[in-house]
């Protein structure tokens, strides 16, 4: 068991445990904080995949903006921070069986596929992934159109949110 695999297992366990706490906790602000831990675990997984840029982007956008937006939204609504209902669905045995079966099928197929590797292929020498990403974002034969559409999508999201939040006086 290489140290990388050990760290991966540890981080994945923390991430999944925190995700479980998000959905089972009764207090909504606590749930938001567990979500922050989950997102941080995902960022560490990005680092393990040698994608440092995505790790910091994950922390900046998800934890620094989206989690704060969610916490603001929770605190701006009154009195629904506690959920007194039952935590467990009455049909949970069937759901557990289906989940286990699906998990088993996924593991079986992923292991059987020949393209699954346990170590990522190393980069060719002189290849700087961050620079290549930057070039790819604005190259006409690569990701230029999605880049510009992303900006229009952000604009649409901003306008949509403003229209919803706008107080028509």
């Amino acid at each position: 068991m290489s140290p990388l695999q050990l760290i991966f297992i540890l981080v994945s366990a923390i991430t999944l445990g925190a995700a479980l706490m998000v959905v089972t906790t009764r207090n909504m602000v606590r749930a938001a904080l567990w979500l922050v831990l989950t997102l941080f675990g995902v960022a560490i997984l990005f680092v393990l995949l040698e994608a440092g840029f995505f790790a910091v982007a994950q922390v900046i956008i998800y934890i620094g903006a989206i989690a704060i937006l969610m916490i603001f939204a929770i605190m701006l609504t009154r009195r629904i921070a506690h959920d007194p209902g039952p935590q467990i669905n009455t049909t949970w045995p069937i759901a557990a069986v289906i989940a286990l079966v699906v998990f088993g099928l996924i593991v079986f197929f992923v292991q059987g596929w020949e393209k699954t590797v346990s170590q990522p292929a190393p980069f060719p020498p002189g290849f700087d992934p961050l620079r290549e990403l930057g070039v790819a974002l604005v190259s006409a034969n690569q990701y230029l159109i999605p880049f510009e559409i992303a900006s229009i999508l952000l604009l649409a999201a901003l306008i949509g949110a403003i229209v919803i939040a706008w107080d028509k006086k």
Partner: protein
Amino acid sequence: MADPVTFIGQWLESIFAGWGLSSAWISVIMAALGVLVLSGSVLLVDILLVWVERKVVARFQDRLGPNRLGPFGLFQPIADVIKLLLKEDITPQGADKFVYNLAPILALATVIILWAVIPISVTVVGSTINVGALYIVAVGAIGTLAIIMAGWASNNKYALLGAFRMVAQMISYEVPMVIAILIPVILAKSMSLADIVASQSVWYIVLAPIAAVVFLIGAQAELGRAPFDLSEAESEIVAGFHIEYTGMKFGLFYAGELLHALTFGGLFATFFLGGWRGWGAETYPILGIGYFFIKAMFMYWVIMWIKYSFPRVRIDQMLNFCWKFLTPLILTVLSITAILDKLMSGVPYWIYVLVMLFSNLVILYFVYQAVGRYARKERQKVADPEKVQVNFRVRSSTPSQAS
């Protein structure tokens, strides 16, 4: 003894190799030792900063400051730390215990981990990750979260209100500040802080003065210092998000704030003042450490100077200033810097420097005119009230409009 840090590092590595440890373990142990030394020295400097802050504020206010304990009052911070360690820890009723205790730890820890990517000399840098500039933004985002946690966990509406205002201010000013960080990244063509310092043969404050000033203003707002300290406005909401914290937990917030100020001084020195660069800093790395420290302390002094000279601004003035002035300004500077950098790709460096500086001065001139016109209009609105349109309906049988 030109490079003591590398010398000691190599000596320790040879000892560990002599003990027969594998190279993977050696690198882990060396990294752990490096972390301990870095965190320890950063915290020691933090304790010194308490003394610096109190002496400087005293001098700004024409008084002496602490001068009883030790020569020039130098032992005052030690007395402060001992006092805070012995204070009773009062947790308010109804406070969420875990989050209440986690918030000050997170607030100080996020400032300490910022020092991992700052290059202190040509050979001494914690980690040369290729996304250093974004790492700083990410850690700042976690710091914002620590404030919300502190405000919420205190079970006190003033703490929550203070935390919300502080976070609204911090996230608003993060936008121009991060774009101001983007400009040295464009000039250096790399996000790694070590590369940004290494490519500053001419300091970036000459190439991008507007970005430097915007970064400084953003830093002042991120730190929550005057003129942007409405979350600590003593006459309004008493101490803001850390009302309910006593003893050492408050000490952690306070020390964290001072260390954060020095860290921003160090970041300003790294991005715009050439970091460890100076005369002879490449051949004698120990000089680099000295230059960096002097530049960081000088910028810390500038941050304190701004804090103790300006009155507080109102929250709506502050947010208007950020979103309606700083953000369009810095986006304009970014666009013009990007285009000019591309157009001048083959040009000798001194022409490049002069053109960049000139473009910044031209933008500054237009900004000055626009702000002057806006200020004149605002002053006129206040000075001649009868020129303003007033419509009101008189409640009588014949509704009429008077203007």
